[in-house]
């Protein structure tokens, strides 16, 4: 019997018709009951002028360091708000509040502007009211229609400036942020992370706001808690445990030269965990809680020192001599040199190339050096020749492959991309084809020229040198998945470089910061800054045999009185639990191991020399960085 015989099909069609009819019939009945019979009830509920939702903000998750010490927590605070009502009513209420606590005109305009809040939600008048104000208002409650006072968790950063760049701060969501969809489940008036970890991990930190409903009368007086609509308890945000060592962070902040600008990054080279990340000058993230004071906001934005800038990841600097390790690694990888290789021209305080004289920072000259010695003494003449031997093409290729024009992918917002030429086309574009010479190689070879790196990216290079040559992407909470890069050096070649870096500290340019108990390897640099005094660099790791920590520091305008290397050395010693009093008294004079500008030998027109890339400390768009002031 064919199952698709028309008679059988007709039977099934009748069955199917019956099912469709009855299902749709049930739906129509259900809608009839809801829409026609239940209309009155639901109409009443939909008229929300009777019920007002009062958001119950969820406490944000606590941020701790690796040992559970608090970086950001919550304390109870008071919020004074007004339930929305007719404008005249609200004006009266504001006038009466103003008798207790002075309100400026901007606050009043904000409260009265319905576009500044979610519909039917209370308008916040004072977001962080002191207890005296709250009790005074509570006494006058009868005369202030729609007054709503509730306790809300407020963010507190116990260490304030110390961790400002790391944890960031919170603020009210802006309309553009809301429209962008970056913040899930946020509504107008929600507090969201604006910078640092607060922003990067906002989704898990924020939790979910609860809501309770109050019944109000026609003029907006609060009548009672609504009973028919259940309140929803807020869901607190999840705690966030970071890899930061708060002790180390505090130690670095104490050690950092007062009043100077710069940054320090400490990292576990074997895992990529960031142990400390400090940027100076800092700011007070507590000042942003409950709306930043416009005067403070202005002072932050107009300050010459750009305190909001996280100099560890958001500022690019010419790497100067710390770059020489990258050069040495490239040359070793390509087999251009060995540890004992010498260059044709010994250092006599400089060398002629083209019709210019490229100087060494040491005007007296270093003489004939091996690679190891050249690193220890940071000899520019050696590295000029190394660069030429390596060739510009290889240099550019390796630098691109090793991530010198990428972000490290650290899990903090706003990391800027390090700058480096993509290839020789870059120079063709910049100067025109054949209008430049390989003199650019000389500049690149000593970390000057078209090369601007973030501190964290240079620390990543030393992390690779300190371990097996593989990169471990830096992270504060958990690594973002990134393709790792590799230096592709043999263990022997890495050992050569580590020995050379150890010599830097033992007998080279950083010998002042030598410690008896542990061996530290590292590299100094003084990077030329066209806009002022030179920047001081030091990146080091220890113990040199089996590194457990890499620390990089940059101090802007360090001049010659800087103590960048001891800063790093003592940080390493502290982390490794070695008494660092030995270096306490030391004031190291950091040599200016950066080559001065080459001089012209012959008069006449010259092919243009690449200018040093202007250091872009204001790289960050400050208009994006923070909230508009809570006028």
């Amino acid at each position, binding site marked *: *019997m*064919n*199952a*698709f015989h028309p008679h*059988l*099909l*007709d039977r*099934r*069609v009748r*069955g*199917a*018709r019956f099912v*469709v*009819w009855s*299902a*749709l019939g*049930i*739906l*129509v009945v*259900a*809608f*009839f009951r*809801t*829409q*026609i019979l*239940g*209309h009155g*009830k*639901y*109409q009443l*509920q*939909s008229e*929300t002028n009777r019920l007002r939702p009062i958001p119950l903000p969820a406490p944000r998750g606590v941020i701790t360091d690796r040992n559970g010490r608090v970086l950001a927590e919550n304390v109870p605070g008071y919020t004074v708000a007004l339930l929305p009502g007719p404008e005249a009513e609200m004006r009266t209420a504001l006038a009466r509040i103003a008798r207790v606590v002075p309100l400026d005109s901007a606050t009043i305009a904000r409260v009265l502007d319905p576009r500044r809040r*979610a*519909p*039917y939600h209370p308008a916040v008048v004072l977001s962080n009211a002191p207890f005296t104000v709250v009790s005074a208002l509570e006494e006058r409650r009868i005369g202030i229609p729609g007054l709503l006072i509730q306790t809300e968790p407020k963010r507190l950063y116990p260490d304030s400036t110390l961790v400002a760049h790391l944890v960031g701060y919170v603020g009210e969501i802006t*309309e553009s942020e*809301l*429209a962008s*969809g970056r913040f*899930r489940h946020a*509504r*107008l008036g929600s507090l969201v992370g604006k910078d640092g970890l607060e922003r990067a991990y906002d989704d898990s930190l924020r939790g*979910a706001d609860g809501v309770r409903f109050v019944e109000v009368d026609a003029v907006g007086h609060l009548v009672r808690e609504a009973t028919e609509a*259940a309140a*929803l308890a807020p869901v607190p945000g999840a705690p966030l445990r970071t890899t930061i060592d708060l002790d180390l962070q505090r130690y670095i902040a104490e050690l950092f030269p007062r009043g100077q600008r710069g940054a320090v990054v400490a990292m576990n080279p074997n895992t990529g965990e960031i142990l400390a990340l400090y940027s100076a000058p800092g700011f007070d993230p507590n000042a942003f809680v409950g709306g930043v004071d416009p005067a403070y906001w202005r002072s932050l934005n107009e300050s010459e020192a750009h305190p909001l800038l996280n100099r560890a990841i958001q500022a690019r600097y010419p790497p100067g001599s710390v770059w020489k390790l990258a050069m040495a690694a490239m040359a070793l990888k390509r087999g251009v040199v060995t540890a004992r290789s010498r260059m044709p021209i010994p250092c006599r305080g400089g060398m002629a190339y083209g019709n210019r004289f490229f100087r060494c920072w040491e005007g007296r000259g270093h003489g004939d050096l091996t690679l190891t010695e050249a690193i220890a003494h940071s000899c520019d003449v050696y590295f000029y020749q190394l660069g030429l031997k390596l060739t510009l093409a290889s240099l550019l290729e390796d630098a691109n492959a090793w991530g010198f024009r990428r972000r490290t992918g650290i899990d903090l917002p706003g990391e800027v991309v390090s700058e480096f030429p993509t290839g020789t086309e870059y120079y063709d574009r910049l100067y025109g084809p054949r209008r430049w010479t390989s003199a650019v190689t000389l500049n690149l070879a000593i970390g000057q020229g078209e090369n601007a790196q973030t501190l964290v990216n240079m620390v990543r290079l030393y992390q690779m040198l300190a371990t097996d040559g593989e990169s471990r992407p830096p992270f504060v909470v958990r690594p973002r998945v990134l393709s790792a890069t590799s230096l592709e050096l043999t263990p022997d070649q890495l050992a050569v470089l580590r020995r050379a870096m150890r010599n830097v500290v033992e007998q080279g340019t950083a010998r002042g910061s030598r410690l008896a108990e542990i061996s530290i390897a590292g590299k100094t640099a003084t990077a030329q800054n066209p806009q002022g005094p030179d920047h001081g660099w030091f990146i080091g790791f220890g113990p040199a045999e089996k590194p457990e920590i890499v620390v990089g520091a940059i101090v802007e305008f360090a001049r010659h009185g800087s103590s960048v290397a001891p800063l790093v050395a003592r940080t390493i010693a502290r982390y490794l639990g070695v008494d660092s009093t030995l270096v306490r008294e030391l004031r190291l004079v950091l040599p200016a191991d950066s080559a001065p500008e080459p001089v012209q030998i012959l008069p006449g027109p010259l092919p243009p020399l690449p200018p040093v890339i202007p250091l872009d400390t204001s790289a960050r768009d400050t208009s994006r960085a923070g909230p508009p002031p809570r006028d």
Partner: protein
Amino acid sequence: MLARLREIDRPLAAVVAALSAYGVAVLYSAGQTDVPTFVTTIWHRQLLWLALGIVGAVLLFRTSPRMLEWATPFAYGVAIILLALTLLIGTGAGPAAGTRSWIAIGGVRLGQPAELAKLATILMLARWLAERREPPATLRELVTPGVIAGVPFGLVLLQPDLGSALVFVVILFVMLFWAGTRLSQLVLLASPAVGLILAFSTVTWGAWILLLCGLLLWWRPYVWEGLTVMFANVVMGVIALPLWQRLAPYQQNRLLAFLNPEVDPRATGWHIIQSKIAIGSGGFFGKGFTAGTQKRLAFLPAQHTDFIFPVVGEELGFVGVVAALALFAALLFILLRIARRATDPFSSLCVFGVAGMLFVHIIENIGMTVNLMPVTGIPLPFFSYGGSFLLACFLGIGLSFRVAWESRQSGYL
């Protein structure tokens, strides 16, 4: 080509055009809120998907059912591979952020393979059932179609997306029914699932087992069949509790909230309460197009996807709801007619399967807005925002156009 287009099934074209226009209009309205959201401009993208859907429908209309039958195993295979891939590299989104339902390339979410897999499963089942000519008579013969629907069911369940997964089960039953499987077979096949649901109380489960014994004595299947069914039911009763505990909390909440919306107002009961308020406050004629206050104030959750029907209820009232239901009814009956008059079993089964898929989506989605059905995240055809499902619907419609055209050509009316 044009001559052919003139011979298409006019009623079907009219109903689909009306539903598409209605759907886009409501989606546009869903974006008109007082609170800025990304939903505002989402109807632009829906129009693009609609255009893509029409192109797909035309392509399928140009494809012979024989060609389709040949290509079915490949389509099914690709769908299964995509589903498996989704489990590995899938991403979540929006309210369904915890699940992995989307395939994304370079951060751009391309679509939900599960929606297209529904169509592929329909084709595969149709091919298998049509080849046999005879309806499956024993439980053993039901194993193969069970596996065909079971594989995508399991893969979607792992995403985890229980609602979409259950659609595959419904598709299986609908198509078995159309292939002429006896009702008793279907009941026996479904009995373990019923046993699972009734196992929440020993009394109901005991009553069910007794009823099942009676049914087995009445229908007299093969002895081993009866024993298998009995055994499966007992096993279900035993594993019900551990299975319940393995459900994600949101899934538990949804099932509980179906029984009592007050139970967890945050997760799901809240949706139902808000949805009912919106629909109920619409009254007979509604509050006017784009003027729904509940929707404007963003009280409605997921008002552009799963809960788009309350927008119809609130703004266009009972009249708008009945109009939408009438259009859906017309669509289903037209598809039923096409399936009835199809020239061959494969075409007939395909069209009926598409109708069944649309039916379950319509009933489940609209039913949950008035608390007749538990809340699951499955979209409403032609209304909900979502490219993959719209595409799947239009592909199914294009196929139906072809089948209708074939029977017209052969004079089989």
